[in-house]
């Protein structure tokens, strides 16, 4: 009996402690989502004196048949498919390299983390210069040097073939520090005794990595992949500042289209429908990523 009431008290305390977070989720995630869904069933327009009418699923039909929005979703998918493995892999490599007690290591780690804390506008200005067209642009010049002049200079941000790739490169550069820090923390949480046991068993560096490091990092990796996926689908700043979705929609994304619809063209209903579609898709992709990660265990 006493155990039961203690459990009830514990449950009550738990609910009480969760209350602020739950209230926050309700107020800042669920309610806005509900509102967006509601708005997406109307023909609401910013500043229109005409009455707002309920139009049913029409905005959704329009959004899902809009070639530009479908292109935006495809861009999001391609971007995520490239950036998630590359960024996670790179972060793991850097974390492994930095996970040793060397002199001045904190300085090195800070350097790798620096791009994460730079305001995105600064990052964009720097990379816009790096991607400058013509043989004088640093990216073109570097490739020219590496290929001994065999590289024909391209206009990275204005060429449909390269624009999304350029976005991916600068996004990985800017974001990799965050994943690196999380993985570094994960690496340091793996008990040293496991490594000692592996060495006693005669395991080489590769097999230690495969059988000690990776399993020890599993949960952290699942987290990193999930977060990176969500961040990749959230792609917006780069697009807004550097390409405005162009050229020929090569770099547009779902969120960019939603903001352009709602605020640049004042079509709030269409913008809302886009965010609802985007949210459902991200939720689905995240669920799949988590399931895949679990299944492998």
């Amino acid at each position, binding site marked *: 009996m006493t155990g039961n009431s203690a459990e009830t008290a514990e449950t009550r305390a738990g609910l009480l402690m969760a209350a602020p977070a739950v209230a926050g989720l309700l107020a800042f995630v669920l309610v806005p989502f509900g509102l967006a869904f509601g708005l997406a069933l109307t*023909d609401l*327009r*910013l*500043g*229109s*004196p*005409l009455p707002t009418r309920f139009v049913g699923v029409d905005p959704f039909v329009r959004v899902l048949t809009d070639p530009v929005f479908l292109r935006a979703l495809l861009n999001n998918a391609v971007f995520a498919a490239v950036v998630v493995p590359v960024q996670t892999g790179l972060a793991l490599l850097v974390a492994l390299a930095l996970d040793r007690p060397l002199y001045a290591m904190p300085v090195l780690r800070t350097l790798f983390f620096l791009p994460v804390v730079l305001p995105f506008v600064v990052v964009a200005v720097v990379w*816009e*210069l790096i991607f*400058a*067209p*013509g043989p004088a642009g640093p990216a073109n010049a570097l490739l020219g040097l590496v290929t001994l002049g065999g590289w024909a200079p391209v*206009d990275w941000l*204005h*060429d*449909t073939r390269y624009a999304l790739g350029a976005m991916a490169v600068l996004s990985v550069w800017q974001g990799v520090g965050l994943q690196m820090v999380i993985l570094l923390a994960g690496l340091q949480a793996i008990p040293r005794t496991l490594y000692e046991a592996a060495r006693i068993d005669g395991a080489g560096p590769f097999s230690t990595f495969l059988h000690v490091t990776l399993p020890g990092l599993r949960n952290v990796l699942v987290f990193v992949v999930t977060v990176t996926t969500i961040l990749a689908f959230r792609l917006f700043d780069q697009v807004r500042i550097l390409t*405005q*979705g*162009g*050229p*020929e929609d090569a770099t547009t994304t779902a969120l960019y289209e939603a*903001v*352009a619809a709602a*605020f*640049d*063209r*004042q*079509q709030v209903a269409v913008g809302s429908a886009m965010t609802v579609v985007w949210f459902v898709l991200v939720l689905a992709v995240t669920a799949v990523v988590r399931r895949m990660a679990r299944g492998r265990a």
Partner: protein
Amino acid sequence: MAPRPYAGAVVRHRIATKHALAALLAAALLVPAACTRKEADTPETPAQGEGTETVTVWFHTGRPAERDALQAQVADFNGRQDRYRVVLTLIPEGGYNAQVRAAALARDLPDLLDLDGPLLASYAWSGLLVPLDDLLPEATRADLIPSIVAQGTWPPGPGGRLYGAGTFDSGLGLFADRAALAAAEVRVPDATATAWTAEEFRAALAALAARDPDGQVLDLKRNYKGEWFTYAFSPLLASAGADLIDRKTLTAHGTLDSAAAVGAMTQVQSWIRSGYVDPNLDDAAFVRGRVALSWVGHWEYGRYHDTLGDRLAVLPLPDMGTGSRTGQGSWQWAVTAKAKSPEGAAAFLAYLLEPEQVLAMANANGAPPGTRAATARSPLYGPAGPLRLFAEQLGAASVPRPRTAAYPAITDAFQRAFADIASGADVKEALTRAAAAIDRDVADNHGYPVTVAP
């Protein structure tokens, strides 16, 4: 989320900081005003008698020179009469339009506010403004230059009322290095009527490029963002006999995707494709001497003149078939429908439109003055001024951006089409797509029927 800058924003950001001539004049004009400003600016100004009415005014915080000029004007106005007392609120330009829209929802608008030109129709359509026809003195309205009247009138055409009045406008053209043109043996057209034809312009680019180490001779300010492209390149459509939309029927199909429009935009694309256009990432293509021609507005005059001196020429945009056309429009004042003191708002606006005040502001920001009287006396835009071409073009050869509440959708569609065309997309396809996007927005809004009695 900052809303995209409209023309005024471009104007403010790009005006050269070292506008020596205008700055000097502004300083000379503002010194007396600045002396009185200290007292008048303090909120503790003693109440000026029983009948004093408070007039609330919102202004976007533009460049410091503009802001200082307006603050001096407020102090001067409050000091010279005691019927009205103007209380000025400065709102950051980044979120200005969004804040005004939000205030409108909360029924909290001031008596008088300033708006970026192409947004006026959208505000008037929303019923947020009252016409100025009966508020402003006849003489003040008659003194406004035609382009200011056109930009402030809604709906366009007969039956339109004046909803906005700007104290300054904007000027757009080609700035050129005379020495480079002479060396390439290119004719220098310095009047609208003698503008280069499309073929002449292409030949000029080729001749200049032949003498240029990297072949890049033209700056289109491709480094600018947003509204710039509609402001600067939609006049080419008009010059070719096309337009962004058919201004009578509000339809884009058949106009924006017409053969004339495709032809004009194909020309622009060919300049870029031929390698004549500097990407101008550092915004210094012209002042560093990398290019001989810069397609830009009045705001660059100061910086360019500092660099080139007498070698600087101001030319009209090329004629794409039906005569050279240019852009117009900047920030303008409007009285709100909820104004508690519309008469007070109008009195302050009438004061701002007095020749001395128009000149004070125009000299502070280098823009073309909004009234005839001030233009005649302007050192930059007067009969002997170096920028008189811009003053002559306003109203005569300038095209207001479409004065319809569909403008946000129109400019969004055109900007995308322009970016695609500039990066090599099929011109006809890009313009057809833009036209379809505009027509769909107009249909969604039931053709933007005028619901407010004008």
